[in-house]
């Protein structure tokens, strides 16, 4: 079987191609000038430039955090380019004006921006390096009063809304990478769902890093007004390169009273090769604030990136608010993942539910780091946490770092964790039923992840399942 395994281990990263497109790329380096340049390039109002500069100045005083359970070479922040845009993008217009080369790239990634050909009715905002190349289904969404556009466009056309909510959940001073993002973020998606509106389709952002030396710093802001509902998807890929590229994104979600936001991510950045060469450093800050009776649900499938450092969190501010976190994180090859969540219970009768499934294979190191904090006023708070790890092979590692902080005795918390391997007897049983070893493992793994996959929207669930299969193929012998 080892020949097949070798073959599979050395399998190409499917999205590893790069698009040869003329781009306007800022030379590497970061200074106040860079920040001003990006802001000017995007024709931003004065207040946003001021905000960026405040973030930049704060960032200079901050130190890169090293508490996550990951190791990497120091990052040279001056070696990266902070802005890169395909030259052919002239401004935001209809999709017809988008460079065919870009459309081709997205088609190759399986993301069709062409609305007519779209079968599954998902509105997509496609972000290529530093800019958004196009957003589909805009008119249809506008009928409902839903704003879904690139961040740059939102700043220009819905400046007041952006100004009202930007940085309210993740202030620019939040952490090192959030501060960096606040200073140099180039584009991203903005979404506003008006009062009482149930968004008729899934909204989606697709991130693509193309240029070799750029970092990607996008920012997503989702505002769900009272009683609204939205399901949001995020996908990401990058070309295969020998150098490490930095991806420091920020996602902010505001769910006002009785709103529901469901945010799903399938993260498949290039993970580097089996020797740990290349790959994306995925240092992301994601946080939502749930007001009265609101619900925020994070679902993530993390299979890519050389290093993942990400803790989608929920501040349960309003009474009866609900926070959920469902995660499957895979660390294979030389990948390192330190991921989990934070649930901050502030309101009464707040509930949180955490299900985390970690899979480590080959030389991957997978850590779950989560915090559940019940503040003194959170009467009747309830948390259930389950984090399971699966190890495949004896060179990988699985780690759990849960923090439980309770300051109110009416809270009920349960935390469970387990670590196990795929049992010989399980494989034997399935083989005896006619499955080969690979199929058996894939079946066991999907069973292991089922609780999380069922939270994903249909299209994503299928993609995730396949992705998982590809990532883990060959790691079993």
């Amino acid at each position: 079987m080892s020949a097949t395994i070798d073959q599979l281990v050395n399998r190409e990263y499917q999205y590893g191609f790069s698009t040869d497109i003329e781009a306007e790329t800022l030379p590497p380096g970061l200074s106040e000038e860079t920040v001003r340049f990006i802001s000017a390039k995007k024709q931003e109002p004065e207040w946003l430039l001021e905000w960026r500069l405040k973030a930049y100045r704060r960032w200079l005083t901050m130190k890169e955090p090293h508490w996550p359970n990951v190791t990497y070479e120091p990052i040279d922040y001056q070696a990266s380019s902070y802005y890169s845009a395909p030259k052919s993008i002239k401004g935001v217009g209809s999709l017809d004006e988008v460079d065919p080369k870009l459309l081709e790239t997205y088609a190759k990634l399986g993301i069709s921006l062409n609305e007519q050909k779209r079968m599954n009715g998902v509105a997509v905002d496609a972000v290529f390096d530093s800019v958004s190349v196009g957003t589909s289904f805009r008119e249809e969404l506008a009928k409902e009063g839903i704003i879904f556009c690139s961040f740059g466009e939102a700043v220009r056309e819905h400046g007041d809304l952006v100004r009202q909510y930007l940085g309210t959940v993740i202030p620019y001073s939040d952490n090192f990478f959030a501060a960096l993002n606040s200073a140099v973020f180039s584009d991203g998606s903005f979404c506003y769902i008006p009062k009482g509106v149930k968004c008729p389709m899934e909204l989606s952002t697709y991130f693509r890093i193309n240029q070799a030396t750029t970092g990607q710093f996008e920012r997503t802001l989702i505002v769900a007004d009272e009683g609204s509902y939205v399901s949001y998807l995020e996908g990401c890929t990058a070309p295969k390169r020998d150098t490490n590229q930095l991806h420091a994104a920020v996602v902010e979600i505001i769910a006002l009273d009785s709103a529901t936001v469901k945010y799903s991510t399938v993260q498949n950045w290039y993970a580097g090769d089996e020797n740990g060469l290349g790959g994306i450093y995925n240092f992301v800050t994601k946080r939502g604030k749930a007001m009265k009776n609101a619900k925020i649900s994070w679902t993530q499938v993390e299979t890519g990136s050389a290093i993942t450092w990400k803790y989608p969190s929920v501040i349960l501010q309003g009474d009866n608010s609900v926070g959920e976190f469902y995660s499957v994180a895979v660390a294979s090859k030389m990948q390192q993942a330190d991921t989990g969540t934070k649930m901050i219970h502030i309101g009464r009768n707040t509930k949180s539910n955490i299900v985390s499934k970690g899979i480590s294979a080959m030389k991957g190191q997978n850590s779950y780091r989560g915090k559940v904090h019940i503040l003194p006023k959170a009467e009747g708070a309830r948390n259930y946490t389950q984090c399971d790890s699966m190890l495949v092979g004896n060179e990988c590692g699985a780690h759990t770092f849960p923090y439980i902080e309770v300051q109110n005795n009416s809270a009920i918390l349960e935390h469970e964790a387990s670590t196990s391997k795929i049992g010989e007897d399980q494989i034997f049983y399935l083989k005896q039923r006619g499955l080969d070893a690979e199929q058996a493992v894939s079946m066991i793994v999907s069973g292991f992840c089922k609780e999380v996959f069922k939270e994903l929207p249909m299209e994503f669930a299928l993609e995730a399942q396949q992705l998982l299969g590809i990532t883990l193929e060959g790691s079993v012998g």
Partner: protein
Amino acid sequence: MNTMIAAPALLSQATAASASEAPEALRAERAAGHREFEANGLPTTKVEDWHYTSVSAIAESTFAPMQGDASGVTAEQLAPYIFSTSWPTLVFVNGVYAPSLSQTDNLPAGIRVLPLAQAVGELGDVVTRQLGTLAPAARDGFTALNASFLGEGVVVHVSKEMVIDVPVHLLFVVNDAGVGGMQHPRILMLAERHARATVIESWVGLTDGTYFSNAVTEVTVESGATLHHLKVQREGRNAYHVGTIEARQGRDSHYVNFAFTTGAQLSRTNVYTVLDGEGCGTTLNGLTMLDGEQHGDVQTRIEHAQPKCFSRQMYKSILDDTSHGVFNGKVFVQSIAQQTDGKQTNNTMLLSKTAQVDAKPQLEIFADDVKCTHGATVGRIDETALFYMKSRGIDNDTSRQLLTYAFAADVLETIENETIRDELERITMRRFTSVTD
């Protein structure tokens, strides 16, 4: 990041202590302790292992080394803390061995229990083999501090294949004469191959004054040996207590530790063990009961360094008033430690609205063929259980008392020695119910 409190007063005392006259065997370790303390100081809450426990109160206070004045302590005063008068007992009063209150003539053959100073001469190799090797001064500021004051303490040595049925009791007492003082005893335990013994380490405060106990215990459990080690911490209400236990286990050995904690205004108990032989195992259990403004922190670390080892942990705490409980349990599984079986449970009951708990059950696993689980719960008395009892005609108060006691009894029942178990159950029963005996 500021990770160190310099504690200049303690440092100058440590400098003096480590330079004072000492037996050859202790000198090097004292020097190492002093060096490490100078370099590391005491940890701040920025240090991950001390995140929930601030020791700045210790660093800012001034304590004089205790002088061991035993004149004010009588056998009657100690009676409530002695599990059985027929057990060999070594009493340390205000930091110094008190032979007049101790009873060692009833030690059975096969076990030797000597004060550290005497053991340096008589059990030289037992001391040098263990001292500072299991709990190196570099571990943390408190261990370093203990090392620089090295001098008082006790050595327990169980010879190979000896089964000692009678528990040995090490009792550390502080009374009014020790107020404002500090003690840094070092305890060494060695259970040679296939030996079996039970040792109780008791910490008692007969005063409401402030003092500081900083103990380090180094334990070796050789192959096939079984050691039951109980730590009963009933320090005075205003005392500071930091105690570190570090064990290393050989093949097929079993180390059983039980930490019973009710005392001190600020206490920290570290129980660390390395499963360093194939097929060995450890059982670490504990019960913490706090009230008032007490702060109690229990940390465990189990390192699975060899295959086929097991570990079991059950820690419970019952917190009342504005007390603050902390539990941090770590299980490491090294890549060669295949077929590890680890289980950890941590339950906390909060009796009052203002009690607080922080828990961090942690797993770090580098081997694939392992079975490790941990579970943690926090809550108050189960309303449905309460309702059930009340519907059976038991009044509210009694039901609450019974449920609270039952929560604690669950872990107390794991104590093997009947006398100790009964006594700790009685203490717990008295704490939560009106039942006097």
